[in-house]
């Protein structure tokens, strides 16, 4: 189901995307385009490899730069061209590929692209209607634009760490450096909006996206609350300001939990019934949110005492059937078995030449007329160099051999 069907080539069939950069935030953005049939060509080099290719590399790694599961999983259906940008011939090749590209995407530190003549002026001279997106941590301008951070820093700076955890403990942020997963979506939105605009105007655009700003934009409500009321939001564990009970409760087994969110009075009545109508649930005031919020700690204790003897998935089934928003806290093994994700074809098995069968992941959106999907795992470094230089730029085998001999294609 996850594989792209032959009769549905995807929304972006025929669209050419040239990608420079590394890490997660850049490649995840263009993965959305690849999932819908765009041809995405990545420029890489073994001289300065994408850090995801070396993330878990040890002396014992058998497949070197081609054996990183994280790289392979985040770059399905892309082509890799190895080009040494320290060689002038390498820069020339990339400039010619810009002429081929509808979209140029990069996430280097500001100034790197300009060094190769590939700032917006350079790009538009090569391809007047290009959509060019830059997506570094802090954006292309400003006093801190060269700040050398990864997603871990982005998440902290944008405010997500401060908001995640327990009020009496460290501000540690959600798992997975959230700006690395949030900002690619905004990159893709800006690119597709610019492509739509280009269909009307014939003009391209440069988009200067800061991963941190995309995070702060997402937190607009927090900014507004600070600006309007001077209220600085703080992490509250799993509690809600407006609803109670609202938390994560222990279940039977080791590290097993259920999330229960009583968002309104109907859900409270349903929960009380599902718990077997215990006496404590009839204390005065609990029928309304304000009363429940006032006695939140006590409700949490009572509910935890009940859930501790229960199996999390089975209890979630019962609570949902009764109309209470609830769900088991799922680990990665649970996700692989999740019937709803399976129904949506979330995991796409594809075989990688070195790593064997891997499970690639779809985005969270499905188009009824264009299902999309993936057909090939992330590429080996330089796997498509010959194909792209020959097929796209029309270089002969002799020319390619000559470039290779001069260490341009590494």
């Amino acid at each position, binding site marked *: 189901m996850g594989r792209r069907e032959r009769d549905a080539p995807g929304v*972006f069939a025929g669209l050419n995307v040239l990608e420079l950069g590394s890490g997660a935030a850049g490649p995840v953005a263009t993965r959305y385009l690849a999932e819908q049939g765009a041809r995405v060509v990545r420029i890489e080099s073994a001289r300065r490899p994408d850090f995801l290719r070396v993330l878990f590399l040890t002396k014992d790694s058998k497949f070197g730069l081609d054996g990183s599961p994280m790289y392979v999983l985040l770059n399905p259906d892309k082509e890799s061209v190895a080009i040494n940008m320290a060689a002038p011939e390498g820069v020339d090749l990339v400039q010619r590929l810009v002429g081929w590209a509808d979209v140029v995407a990069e996430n280097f530190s500001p100034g790197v692209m300009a060094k190769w003549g590939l700032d917006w002026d350079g790009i538009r001279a090569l391809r007047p209607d290009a959509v060019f*997106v830059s997506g570094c941590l802090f954006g292309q*301008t*400003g006093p801190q634009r060269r*700040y050398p951070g990864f997603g*871990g*820093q982005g998440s902290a700076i944008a405010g*997500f*760490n*401060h*908001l*995640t*955890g*327990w009020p009496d*403990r*460290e*501000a*540690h942020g*959600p798992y997975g450096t959230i700006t690395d*997963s949030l900002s690619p*979506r*905004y990159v*893709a*939105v*800006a690119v597709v909006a610019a492509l739509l605009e280009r269909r009307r105007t014939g003009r391209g*655009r440069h988009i*200067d996206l*800061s991963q*941190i*700003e*995309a995070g*702060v934009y*997402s937190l*607009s*409500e927090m*900014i*507004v*609350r*600070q600006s309007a*009321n001077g*209220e600085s939001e703080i992490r509250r*564990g799993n509690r809600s300001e*407006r609803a109670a009970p609202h938390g*994560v409760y222990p279940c039977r087994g080791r590290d097993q939990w259920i*999330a229960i*969110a009583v968002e309104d009075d109907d859900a409270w009545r349903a929960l009380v019934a599902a718990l077997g109508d215990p006496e404590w649930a009839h204390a005065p005031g609990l029928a309304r949110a304000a009363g429940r919020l006032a006695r939140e700690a006590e409700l949490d204790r009572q509910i935890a005492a009940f859930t501790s003897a229960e199996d999390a998935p089975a209890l979630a089934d019962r609570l949902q059937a009764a109309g*209470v928003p609830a*769900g088991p806290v799922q680990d*990665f093994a649970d*996700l*692989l078995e999740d019937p*709803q994700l399976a*129904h*949506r074809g979330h*995991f796409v098995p594809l075989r990688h030449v070195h*790593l064997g069968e891997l499970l690639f*992941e779809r985005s*969270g*959106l*499905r188009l009824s007329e264009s299902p999309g999907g993936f057909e090939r795992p992330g590429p080996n470094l330089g796997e498509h160099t010959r194909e792209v230089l020959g097929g796209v730029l029309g270089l002969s085998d002799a020319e390619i051999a000559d470039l290779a001999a001069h260490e341009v294609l590494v």
Partner: protein
Amino acid sequence: MLAGLRVLDLSDESGFLAGKLLGDLGADVVKLEPPGGDLVGRRAPYLRGEPGPERSLAWLALNISKRGITLDSTLDPGRPLFRGLLARADVVIEAGPAGVLDAQGLGWDTLAPDHPGLVWCSITPFGRAGPRAHWRGGDLVVVAMGGNMKVTGDPDRPPVRCSMPTAYYHAAPEAALGILMALHQREDTGRGQLVDVSLQETQLQSLLSAPGQFARQRRPLTRSGARMGRTREIWATRDGWVSFGLRGGPARVANLEATVAWMDEHGLAPEWLRAFDWKGFSHLTVPDEEIERLEQAFGAFFAKHTMRELYEQALARRILLAPCNDARELLEHPQLRSRELFVTLDSPEIGASIEHPDFFARTSDHAIGLRRRAPRIGEHNAEIYGELGLTAHDLEKLTAEGAI
């Protein structure tokens, strides 16, 4: 960038940001509310703590760049208005439990045949179809079921979520992206389509391929709180927390050396630390006692400074250290200020002048940016129903009937 596109926004809070995003891209977004206002979406906290649906800060933040009308589409006089609005719309966004509009005969399945060009985006907790399509869940439940929560938090406490609803933040741009993809395809085919977004499924991207990696090696991850693997990542300062990775690898050697040199300037780098071999340091193999000794030294240094002091020096010395900012810090942030990320919008009716993030990306002509403050209840009824040919007299009658 999206000038000329009309979006009808029927969403609840889980989808407010999706419509705002399209509005900030220049689309004409019309937010629909029940007569009397969306009293669930216009929730607390309120401006200066005084309750009132026109003073909801969540509403002011997330329904910005939209116009607003009221309509009860389940009433007989409301139905033709809804159809009239649909006939003029390019996009509909619905967000909330699956099947609510469908049950009223106002969902995609019923209406699509009469509106072949319409792009209909449905944001639901788990997707429109499948064994859990009917399950209910807001941010807490879908973050729990999406895999992120289990690995977030301290090992000695329950799994935890972000206190702002990140599930909606992940889903909103994904919904907008699906809509834009569908509009792109409509340019070729002339036909609209359904965009089916699952809050749970969008959560999984936050794991950055960890489930796929897990499937290969079955090596379970555990919650590690303020640590990243074995070493501390979040450190106490005089006035808050900073993120600083005490991890090895060639990319971090210069960073660690620079930090020790800086500590030394303050007389806080003992001799063993000054002589420490960072090139040979690996957070994977270093003994526990060594980690403890290092963490005590770094921790003592960070604890003597404020977040700002540390960040300013980190910038100057190119050290990978970041403050765990709160909203106040962000509003004063020199980098964000220099890019004019924040803009002040006035709402004189409620005596408010509020700063908002203006854009998610910068581009020429301010093509991405806020368009107008959030609508008051029914603020644009006359304007938008006027397009359908309704007169002031008609509107009075519809108001009396409870339809608008």
